[in-house]
């Protein structure tokens, strides 16, 4: 595949995996947690690097998942002990992210890990760092994202009922014997691995937009969670594709353009969505 093809595929996989997982954050009203996890994941990556002394994907995934869950747990514990929820989120993730930044500057200066890269990502470098699978040379980041996307799809398919029920009515879920806390941490684990998978491509800041924006567009389009998941994948992939060509046109940052494309798509949906768009609401107000 061409250089351009790999970048488009990688970007689409970021859009699809984040879009899918992000839907659940939106219907649970916890998109701030996406912000928290995507930042503290940096600490997980650095710790994994320091322990295993390698930038191998598997170590990064394990490190990131562990730190993602620790973040969720720490936020919950602070909140339970009386700190406001948004304040707990702000305290925990900034602290974790800061520790990550300090560790990079202390121990990991010479490797392929720097703060700017962690914040912004650099999708343009991805096609040059490859390995060979079944005789095909594919970029490492793309391979990892492919696995993460398949894994996330599988988990959502298997636990769809439980994810939906605990999102809508956790109290009922408890009386039905659904392990609400376990499902919550399962979802947070998914957010962590999608965040780390997308890290190389778009970085810690913009991965938040990929987690939140496609799902927010999809939320305006439908009344069914399953359809929302599909739309969200489409919006994620569309932001990736429009973003890439936008970046070519403007000769600008690819990840920046992807997020900007997501923002523009959201504005368009917000105005024109046949379901909950502004125009539609305006029209029904006039006729009723």
């Amino acid at each position, binding site marked *: 595949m061409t250089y351009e093809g790999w970048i488009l595929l990688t970007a689409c996989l970021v859009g699809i995996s984040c879009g899918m997982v992000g839907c659940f954050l939106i*219907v649970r*009203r916890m998109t701030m947690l996406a912000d928290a996890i995507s930042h503290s994941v940096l600490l997980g990556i650095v710790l994994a690097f320091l322990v295993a002394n390698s930038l191998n994907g598997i170590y990064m995934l394990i490190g990131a998942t562990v730190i993602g869950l620790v973040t969720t747990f720490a936020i919950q514990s602070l909140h339970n002990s009386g700190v406001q929820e948004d304040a707990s989120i702000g305290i925990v993730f900034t602290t974790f992210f800061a520790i990550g930044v300090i560790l990079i500057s202390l121990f990991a200066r010479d490797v392929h890990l720097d703060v700017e890269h962690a914040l912004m990502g650099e999708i343009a470098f991805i096609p040059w760092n490859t390995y060979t699978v079944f005789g095909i040379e594919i970029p490492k980041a793309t391979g990892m994202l492919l696995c993460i996307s398949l894994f996330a799809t599988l988990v959502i398919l298997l636990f769809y009922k*439980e994810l939906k*029920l605990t*999102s*809508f009515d956790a109290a*009922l879920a408890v*009386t*039905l014997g659904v392990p609400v806390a376990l499902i919550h941490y399962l979802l947070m684990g998914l957010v962590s691995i999608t965040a780390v998978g997308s890290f190389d491509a778009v970085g810690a800041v913009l991965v938040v937009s990929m987690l939140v924006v496609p799902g927010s567009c999809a*939320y305006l389009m439908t009344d069914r969670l399953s359809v929302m998941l599909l739309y969200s994948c489409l919006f994620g992939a569309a932001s990736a594709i429009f973003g890439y060509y936008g970046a070519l046109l403007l000769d600008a940052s690819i990840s920046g353009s992807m997020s900007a494309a997501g923002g523009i798509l959201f504005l368009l949906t917000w105005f024109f969505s046949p379901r909950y768009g502004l125009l539609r609401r305006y029209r029904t107000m006039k006729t009723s």
Partner: protein
Amino acid sequence: MEALNVKDLQVAYDRKAVLEQVELSIPKGSLTAIVGPNGAGKSTLIKAILGMLKRSSGQISILGKPYSPKNRNVGYVPQRGSVDWDFPTNALDVILMGRYGHIGWFKRPSKQDIMLAKEALHKLGMADYADRQIRQLSGGQQQRIFLARALVQDAEVYFMDEPFVGVDAKTEKAIIDLLRELKHKGKTVIVVHHDLQTVLEYFDHTLLLNRTVIANGPTEQVFTKDLLQKTYGGTLAFFSPTGDKRVMS
């Protein structure tokens, strides 16, 4: 036989006791009202019994066995305000959620589950609203959806948290008809109830609660001025069954 037995239940928020030394039993096949002032811990009692809130102490048994969700003998109707009505789902789908305990892991709702959900919709006069997004239903219709969902849980003991709040007369009638039908089938229904005027008419068993059990027994024995005053303390606008309103102090 007892539908519900609670021994030595204590619940605390931030180390402040909300419920203390709650001991109670509710007979099987009864329609029971839980009555008490705001902040008496009525909802907390239900939530603590069903394990949604942490208990400091207490043993709960349902139909003679220690309570476990795995026994699938308990149905629950939360307060209407406790869920997000903007959730992307429709009426039929919400009712189907009541079947999730029966469906089990990794499986989709079967044709039979969907049929049961449709029957419940029909029974509550909501057959035309199956595809409606739940925000677009009236308060009474939303409450009926919750009841239909409890119905398909096919439980023995139902706990309902203020099902009559903010509903229209038609819904109130639909709910009370349903409660009576459940009782007729030998089920037990335990309802947090705020409307003192209808307690005598609707419920055969009453539990007066104010942070602990004040009284618990057949409604005509428990629903007396003295006990109500003890429950509510201070001033109480008391509605007698005949409808004349007196203020006791």
